[in-house]
């Protein structure tokens, strides 16, 4: 389904998100102070996860070129930017990632990479464990369930075992262990058409099950609500769950999650340098709007701070229940 079709489907249910925010908050939905630069360096991926909003996979061609990466590095050096968040696809499949990590690490900011870890079991990419460790890069990985079958259902056969194997190796290096400063976070998102539970409840179970069952450890767990876009939208529609799922998101609207929505504090950069309010908007082709410069080549933090955020009804996914972001829950449950 192309982006226009997706937008037409998600906007066909419920009141427009921006209207709801305006009514609840008596204000436009605007960004606050940007402190995070999220960079999508590759839509190419070794996996084709069934929930992937990027619709990443081995057939994708979009890779951020070196000139755009250099502009990202310049931007990341701005004093206002505190967090550099690298995502994909599989970021490791960008041939310039190693260079970028080494250069970005010198900025001495919080540097994180979203890796599926399965790719590190491939000897062509296993060196990235050294690269991440030497740059003290925070690693965020997806592990939708602590049961082998359930996790593989979403990410593909054999992925759970490989992820566990790599986490063991990372644990040996000190990742995910208290006191080392080497952060390894896990992302949980539901394997189906339902909302995630409260983050602390799930985190407790993950710690117990992964320690007892596999002897592995992690720093924190983030719960992320699946966004009704990309492959997950295909699943919702083909399984007859779309209307119920959207109604659940809309019904669970939590106005306190609006204030803490991640798009208020970040921008997302696409492979070609286009600026978006978040990675989800990026996959829907919704670039920053309302007269804000929309390419990394003319990045202007003053104009981006306080910009009106571009929304569609998938945004209800970030304000439902405890809220959802790339850093997990954002609010107390309503």
């Amino acid at each position, binding site marked *: 389904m192309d982006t226009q079709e997706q937008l037409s489907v998600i906007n066909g249910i419920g009141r427009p998100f921006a209207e709801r925010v305006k009514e609840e908050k008596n204000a436009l939905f605007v960004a606050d102070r940007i402190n995070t630069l999220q960079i999508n360096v590759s839509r190419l991926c070794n996996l084709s996860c069934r929930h992937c909003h990027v619709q990443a996979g081995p057939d994708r061609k979009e890779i951020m070129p070196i000139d755009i990466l250099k502009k990202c590095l310049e931007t990341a050096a701005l004093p206002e930017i505190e967090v550099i968040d690298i995502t994909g696809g599989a970021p490791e499949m960008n041939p310039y990632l190693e260079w970028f990590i080494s250069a970005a690490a010198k900025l001495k900011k919080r540097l994180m990479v979203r890796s599926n870890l399965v790719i590190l079991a491939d000897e062509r990419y296993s060196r990235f464990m050294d690269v991440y460790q030497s740059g003290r890069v925070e690693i965020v990985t997806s592990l939708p369930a*602590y049961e082998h079958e359930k996790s593989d259902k979403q990410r593909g056969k054999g992925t759970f075992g490989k992820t566990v194997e790599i986490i063991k190796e990372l644990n040996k290096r000190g990742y995910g262990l208290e006191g080392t400063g080497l952060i390894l976070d896990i992302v949980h998102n539901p394997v189906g058409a*339902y*909302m995630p539970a*409260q983050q602390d*409840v799930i985190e407790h*179970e993950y710690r117990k099950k992964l320690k007892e069952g596999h002897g592995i450890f992690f720093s924190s767990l983030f719960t992320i609500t699946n966004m009704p876009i990309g492959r997950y939208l295909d699943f919702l529609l083909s399984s007859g769950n779309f209307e119920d799922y959207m109604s659940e998101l809309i019904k669970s609207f939590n106005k306190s999650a609006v204030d803490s929505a991640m798009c208020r504090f970040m921008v997302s950069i696409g492979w070609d340098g286009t600026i978006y309010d978040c990675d989800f908007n990026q996959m829907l082709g919704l670039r920053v709007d309302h007269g804000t410069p929309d390419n990394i080549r003319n990045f202007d933090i003053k104009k981006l701070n306080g910009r009106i955020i571009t929304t569609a009804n998938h945004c209800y996914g970030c304000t439902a229940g405890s809220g959802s972001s790339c850093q997990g829950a954002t609010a107390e449950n309503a």
Partner: protein
Amino acid sequence: MADYYEKKDLEDFANIGEYAKDQGEKFFQYYGSSTSQGNLSEREKSLIALAVATTQNCPYCIDAYTNKCLSIGLTSDEMMEAVHVGAAMMAGVTLAHSTQMRKIIKKKEL
């Protein structure tokens, strides 16, 4: 019959205090504190609620607590085990009541 059990009616549960507000508010307070974490975890309580929902044939509760259990990360096997506890209890309750029947039989028969 279809009119009695519409999926969207589950959303109306929040409005059951529309009349007799005082009792409605007290019920929700009680419901909230009974189903949230106490000495028993939220997971344990959700499984109990699921078992009760199935034994009482309540489609709304079955819908709500199946989703809750999935969200919490309970497995299909764990959920089905809880349903079996409910089923076994129902069978046991039925059979235990046969004591009354057997007592009457023994009293009446020559």
